[in-house]
């Protein structure tokens, strides 16, 4: 069964450092998303990406965040200057050209120290 792959599974970074979280969506999917989940809290939407541009972003997704699809397979989330409150699980998701089946990756646990 096709899956969304995320790397790394766990990243520890110093406050103020830049991090890049990587995702390989399902190959024929068109819509790409990043969500995050702070420990014990709801899964929260960050950003959606379609046709090589951001289609929607949440209030969380400020100037410190950016997304990129540098080639035909990867989808990345960059945090320029990490804060302690950025510590969370970050999930990438993708879907095809229908409302069916948003597929999530296993996540990257980001720990900012």
């Amino acid at each position, binding site marked *: 069964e096709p899956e969304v792959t995320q790397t790394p599974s766990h990243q520890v970074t110093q406050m103020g450092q830049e991090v890049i979280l990587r995702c390989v969506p399902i190959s024929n999917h068109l*819509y790409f*998303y990043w969500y995050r989940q702070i420990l014990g809290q709801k*899964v929260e939407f960050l950003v959606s990406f379609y046709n090589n541009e951001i289609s*929607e972003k949440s209030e969380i997704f400020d100037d410190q965040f950016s997304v990129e699809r540098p080639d035909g397979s990867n989808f990345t989330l960059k945090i320029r200057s990490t804060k302690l409150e950025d510590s969370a699980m970050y*999930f990438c*998701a993708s879907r095809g050209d229908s409302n069916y089946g948003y597929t999530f990756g296993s996540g990257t646990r980001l720990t900012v120290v």
Partner: protein
Amino acid sequence: EDQVTQSPEALRLQEGESSSLNCSYTVSGLRGLFWYRQDPGKGPEFLFTLYSAGEEKEKERLKATLTKKESFLHITAPKPEDSATYLCAAPKAAGNKLTFGGGTRVLVKP
């Protein structure tokens, strides 16, 4: 504001003890209601999509139903391997981001 609310927050069941989880939503322009299973430290795993009131979907011991205001996930004769957090989520009509509920943590004891 779009809201998805799940109850109860946690559920402890004996193996074989059937129960139901609730998901109520107020999402404008709703285009479907999704149920996911999430194991600790993992991403949400897709279970069901429901599109219209009265629709039902089944998978093994799980059955999801949908009304105009809420959805139920029925767990029939659960086994310990059904222990997980069950999430419901609703996409908006425009942009199609998913709004998630807080989840129901289900623990099935042998």
